[in-house]
C-alpha cells in the first residue's frame, strides 16, 4: 500500500481540463519550468536523478498551477500536485462578489495574501509534505465566495465537501508488513521490547471506506480589513485534522518460525475547530505579520508566528526580476506538548535570495528548530546561473542536522549536493 495521490491527481486533472476547455486560448498565458538535476546524497554512493516541472496556466477567470517532481532510485518517489486550480466569476455587475470553484486556499482569493507554511495558519493548514523540504500550503477542493463590503472590508466564505489528508513522503509496506519508505518518510518505531525480548514490528494499515474518509465537510469563514498600512484578517474554520492521529492496535503474530509485533494502524482524522487572526503592518520596517491560531476545543493548542519581509539584496542595480522577496521569522507553539517532533518546535527561519550579478543568483534558506531536546537544522544554498533568459544551470547544497527526535534530525544523513539545468518556456 502506498499513500499516494492518485485519486487526488485525477480529480484535479479533470478540473484542469475543464478549465482549459472553458477559456479562449487567445486570452490565456502559459509558463512552464522544467529542470533536471543530479543529486548526490551523503547517505548513498550512487547519485540519483531528479526531474522537476512547474506549470502555470492563467486566464482572466481561470488559474492552474501544477508541480511535478520525480526522483529515480529505490528510495525515489514522484508527485503531481496541482494547486491552485480554480475557476472564478463575479456574481454581480459591481464585481463585489466573487464566486469560485476548484482548489485554492480561501485567503488566497484576497489580493496580496499568501499563506506560507512557516506561518501559524499555514502550519496547521493542509501542508503538502510530498517534497518534505519544501512544504506547501494547499487549498480545499470546493468553492466559495469573496464579498467586498467596501474598499477595506471583505468577507470570505469557503466550503468543501471533499477532505484531503496531508500527503507525506510515501511509507510503503510490503505484503509481509515490512517497510519500503521513500527518502524523506518519517519512520515509525522499528521494534518493540516487551518482557526483555525485542520483537520486530510489522505494520498493517487499516483504512475505512474511502467515502467515509474523503466525504467530509470543511467550512471557512473570515473577514479582512485592509488599507495601505495594515491588513487584519480574522477567521474561523472547521475541518478534519489533516495530519492523521494513528489509532493503533498491537498483537503478537506467531508464525511457524517467527514472532512479530503486528501493529495495525487505523488513521483517524478527527474534526477540529479553529479561530485566528492575522495582522500585518505594511508601513513598518520588514512589514511584520503576526498570526495567532487557536484550537477552539483544545485550549493549550495554539500556534503563533511572526514574519518579516524585505526585498532580497540585489548587487547589480536596477535588476529585480531575479530577486523575489526575502523573509524571516519565528513560528512556535507555546503550551501544547506534542509527542512527535513538529515543524513549529520553536522554528526560526530565514529565506534570502541575493542577486549577485545579473546572471547569478544565490538563494539561502535556513530553518532551525530550537525547542530543547528537539534542536535541528536545515540549511540550503543554491546558486543559479542564467546562461540565457530561459535556460540556467543550478548547483545546491542542502545540509540537515539535528537530534534524534527533532524535526530535521530524522533526515540528518540526507544532506546532498546537486547540480542541474532548468529550461523555461
Amino acid at each position, binding site marked *: 500500500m502506498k499513500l499516494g495521490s492518485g485519486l487526488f491527481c485525477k480529480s484535479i486533472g479533470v478540473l484542469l481540463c475543464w478549465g482549459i476547455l472553458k477559456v479562449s486560448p487567445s486570452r490565456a498565458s502559459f509558463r512552464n519550468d522544467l529542470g533536471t538535476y543530479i543529486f548526490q546524497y551523503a547517505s548513498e554512493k550512487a547519485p540519483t536523478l531528479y526531474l522537476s516541472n512547474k506549470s502555470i496556466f492563467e486566464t482572466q477567470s481561470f488559474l492552474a498551477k501544477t508541480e511535478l517532481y520525480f526522483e529515480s532510485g529505490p528510495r525515489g518517489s514522484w508527485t503531481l500536485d496541482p494547486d491552485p486550480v480554480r475557476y472564478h466569476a463575479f456574481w454581480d455587475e459591481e464585481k463585489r462578489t466573487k464566486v469560485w470553484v476548484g482548489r485554492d486556499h480561501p485567503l488566497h482569493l484576497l489580493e496580496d495574501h499568501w499563506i506560507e507554511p512557516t506561518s501559524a495558519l499555514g502550519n496547521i493548514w493542509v501542508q503538502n509534505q510530498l517534497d518534505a523540504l519544501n512544504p506547501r500550503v494547499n487549498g480545499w477542493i470546493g468553492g466559495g465566495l469573496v464579498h467586498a463590503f467596501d474598499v477595506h472590508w471583505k468577507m470570505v466564505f469557503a466550503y468543501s465537501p471533499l477532505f484531503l489528508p496531508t500527503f507525506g513522503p510515501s511509507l510503503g509496506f510490503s505484503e509481509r508488513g515490512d517497510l519500503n519508505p521513500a527518502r524523506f518518510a518519517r519512520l515509525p*518505531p522499528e521494534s518493540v521490547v516487551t518482557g526483555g525480548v525485542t520483537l520486530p514490528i510489522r505494520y498493517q494499515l487499516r483504512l475505512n471506506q474511502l467515502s467515509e474518509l474523503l466525504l467530509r465537510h470543511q467550512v471557512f469563514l473570515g473577514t479582512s480589513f485592509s488599507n495601505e498600512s495594515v491588513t487584519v484578517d480574522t477567521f474561523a474554520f472547521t475541518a478534519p485534522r489533516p495530519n492523521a492521529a494513528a489509532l493503533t492496535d498491537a498483537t*503478537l503474530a506467531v508464525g511457524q518460525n*517467527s514472532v512479530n509485533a503486528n501493529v495495525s494502524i487505523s488513521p483517524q482524522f478527527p474534526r477540529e475547530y479553529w479561530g485566528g487572526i492575522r495582522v500585518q503592518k505594511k508601513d513598518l520596517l520588514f512589514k511584520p505579520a503576526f498570526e495567532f491560531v487557536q484550537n477552539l476545543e483544545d485550549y493549550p493548542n495554539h500556534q503563533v508566528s511572526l514574519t518579516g519581509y524585505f526585498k532580497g539584496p540585489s*548587487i547589480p542595480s536596477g535588476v529585480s526580476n531575479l530577486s523575489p522577496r526575502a523573509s524571516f521569522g519565528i513560528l512556535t507553539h507555546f503550551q501544547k506538548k506534542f509527542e512527535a517532533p513538529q515543524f513549529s518546535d520553536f522554528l526560526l527561519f530565514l529565506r534570502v535570495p541575493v542577486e549577485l550579478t545579473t546572471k547569478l543568483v544565490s538563494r539561502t534558506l535556513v530553518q532551525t528548530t530550537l525547542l530543547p531536546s528537539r534542536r535541528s537544522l536545515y540549511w540550503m544554498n543554491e546558486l543559479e546561473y542564467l546562461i540565457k533568459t530561459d535556460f540556467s544551470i543550478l548547483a545546491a547544497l542542502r545540509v540537515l542536522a539535528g537530534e534524534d527526535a527533532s524535526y530535521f534530525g530524522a533526515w540528518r*544523513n540526507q*544532506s546532498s549536493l546537486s547540480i542541474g539545468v532548468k529550461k523555461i518556456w
Partner: protein
Amino acid sequence: MVRITRSILALLASLGISSCGFVKSVWHAEPPKRQVVVLESKPLPPFSKIFSEDEDESSRAFSEWKESILGSFKQIEGRTKEFLTRDEVRTLVESGLVKLDDNPRTSGDRALAVLEILGFKDGIGTRELNDLFDWIGLHKKEARAFYNLFINETLESDQVHATQIISVLNLFGSFVSLLGDQEVSPEHLSELILPWIPKSYPRARNALRSGIDLGISFFSSFCGDRVSHSVWNGKKIGGCLRNLTKEFESTTPAIDFMFGNRNPSIAPNELIRAAGNFEIRVKSWIEGHHHPLFPVSRVAEFAKALNIPAPYAYLKLTEWMPKLNSDSTLEGLSPRFFIELSRVARVWIVESARASASTLCFIEENWKSCSFTGDYEPASQLFNGEYATLIRTPTLGFVSKVALYHSLSDFIFAKLDIEKKGEIESNIKELISLSIRLLDSNAFAQNVIAGLLERPVDPVNTEDSLKSHTRIGLAELAALAADLIPNRDQSGRSLLRKLQSQILGREKRMPYSMDRIGLTAFIYLYDLVANLNHDYLTRYDLPVKSEGTLRFVDRKKIIEVFPKILFDHFPRLYNECVSWGFERTCGVVFDEILPNSLPGRRDLEAYEMDVITISAILIESMMNRCDRNSDDFLSGNPIDGFDEKTCMITVSTALAKRLMRAGFVDQDHQTEFLMKLTNNFFIAKWAAKAALARGTVKGIAWFAIPAANWLTGPATLGSVLSVAAELMDPAKVKAVETGQDGPVDSYGDELLYHNRLTDYHLPRLKVAPRYPKRSKTGE
C-alpha cells in the same frame, strides 16, 4: 556599488569557508536510530500470593493473574484467532516471550511437554487457559498445602501434617488426571519430563527413565487393578490417589502421629481409634483389589542410574522379605506387607497413647519434650540415668520411640519365633545385619533424595560395614549390651546363667537367643549408636576424609576426643577413670578396644568409633545390672553366691570370652584358663574379687585366702577398669605407671604416656556432672 558587492562576496566567501567545517562534520552523520517501543505491563503480585492464607489476598492475586494471562493471550494471534498450535507455542516460547529456561530450545521443549501433560495435545487457546485457571481456582487449597510443604518451608518431617499430605496427594491426583484417559508409554513420559529437569541435575536426568519405571511399578503395585500396569494413565492414577485420600481422610490423627506431628487436641482414645481405623483401611485397600508384587529390582535400577554407590542396603534388606512377609518373594514385595506395617503402626500408636494418656501434658503442643510420668514397662526397662545424655531424660518422645521399637520387635518376633518359645534363636550376625540394613535403608532413602538434588551422596557401604562390624566384634558387644541394657527386674540369676551358658558353649559362633525386650533394646542400641556417631563428628569437629564409599577419621584425633565423649555422655565412667588415673584405666582400655589402623594408615573408618559407644554402654550396663543397690560400689558377701562382685566377674568374663571368640581381643590360652578357673573354683573367684576391689591383679595369690579377701573393700567401676587394663595390655599399664614410653601399636597410642591425655585433652572441669540417679522411669 562595487565595494558593496565585494563586501557581500567576501562575506559569502568567508561564510562558505567557515561552513565547510560544519558541512564536513554533518555530512557523514549516521541516521538516527529508529525508535523502540518499550511495553511494560502492570506488575502482577507474586504468584505465591495465590497460596496466601488470607482468602481475600489469595482471590485478588488469582484474579489479577487470570485477567493478565487471558488478556495477554488475546493479544496473541496464530493462524487461528485465540488459539496457538503446538508449533506456534514452540515459536512463541523460543522467542523468549515466555521463559521456561535460559536455553530457548529447552524452553520450547518444556512448553510442549507441559501442554501434553495438561492434556492440551493440539495446542492451547482461550478455552484451555480458562479450564486451567478454573482448575487452579478449584484446587487452590490443595495447591496452598503443596506450596507450604515443598516451596515455602523447609521440609522437615515434624512439620508435615496429614491433612497436607492428603491435600497434596489430591492435588497430584487431580493434576495427573488432566492428561485424560490417554495412555503414555514410559519412554514418552520420560521425553515429556526430561526437559523440565535442568542440565545441572545430570543424575536426576539419567535416572528419570528408571524413575518412571519405578513409579509405574509402584502405582501398579500400590493401586492394584485400579491402574494400568505398564503405561502411565493419568486419569486412572489420579482416580486411585483421590480414592486413597478419601479412604484415609478419617485416619489423619494416626498419620500425624507417625510424622511426629500429633495434634494435641486429639484425645488419646481418639488417637487409638484412628490407629485402628488406619489398619482397617490399609487392609481393605489392599485386600479389596488385586495388587501385583512390587519388583524390587526397579529400586536397584533407579539407584544405579542415580549413581548411588553400590551395594544398595535396601535391596539386601529385601532378602528378609520372604521371612517377614510370606506373600513376598526375593524378587517382589507384596503390598500385603503394608498390612503388616500398618499393624506395627497401630501397636506403636496404641502403646504410646496408652502409656502417655495419664501424662497431662500429652495434650500440649510440645508434648514430646514433656516429662513422662506414667507407667510403660519397656521404657522403664530400657531407661538409664547414667549414660548417653542424648536420651537420658524420660520424656514422652522417649516413650514414643521405645514404643516404636517395641512394636517393631513385636512384629519381628511374630515372624521369627515360629515355635512360639518367647525367644528367637539366630546367628547374631543375621540379627546385626537386619538391624544395620534397616538403619542403612534410611540412609539409602536420604541418598536418593540427595542424588536427585545433586547433593553429595553420603557413602554408605553396608556390606563393608557388616564385614568390619564382624571383624571388630561390634556384633558381639552389641548383643551383650542388648542383653544387659534391659532391666528385667529379675534376681539376675537367670541372666548370669544365660551368660555362663554362652561362655561354656562349644561352638565357634554360638547361637544367640533373644527375647522381645532384648530385640527392642537391640534396635534401640543401634539407633542410639548411629545418633551418637553423628553427634561425635559434629560436636567435636572431627575431620572426615572420604574415599569412595568409605569415610575415615584420624585415629589420633579419636584418642584425643574420647575423654570428652566419656565426659559428655558417660559421666560416671569418666569420673571413675579420673579418680583411678585416666590413662591407667580408661586410656588403656579404650585404646585397646579401638581397632588399630590398617598397615600404612593412620586413620579408622568413622563407624569404628561406635566401639567406644557400645563398650561404654556395655560397661555402664554391667554396673547397672550388678550394682543392685545403686550405690556405685560392687560389694562382696561371703554368704551370697551371687553378690555384686560375683556378678561383675561373671559378666566381665562372659564379655572377655565372647570378645576372644569374636577375634576382638587376642585369644590368650592362659587368660582363658584363668577365666575358666575363676568361674569354676571358688578360691580363684575370691582372688578375682580381691583384684576387682584393689584394681590390680598384682599379688592376688594372697587374697585367695578367705580372710584376706574379706578384708578387701568393695570394687568400683574404676577398679574394675584398672584390672581390665592390666589384663588387656600389661605393658602399656606398666609404661603409664612408670612414666616411660610404652608400646605404640597404632597411631595415637603415644598419647597414653607422660600424662598427655590428662594434661592436654581432658575437659577443664574435673568432675563430669551426672544425671540425678534414677533406678526406674517415672520415679
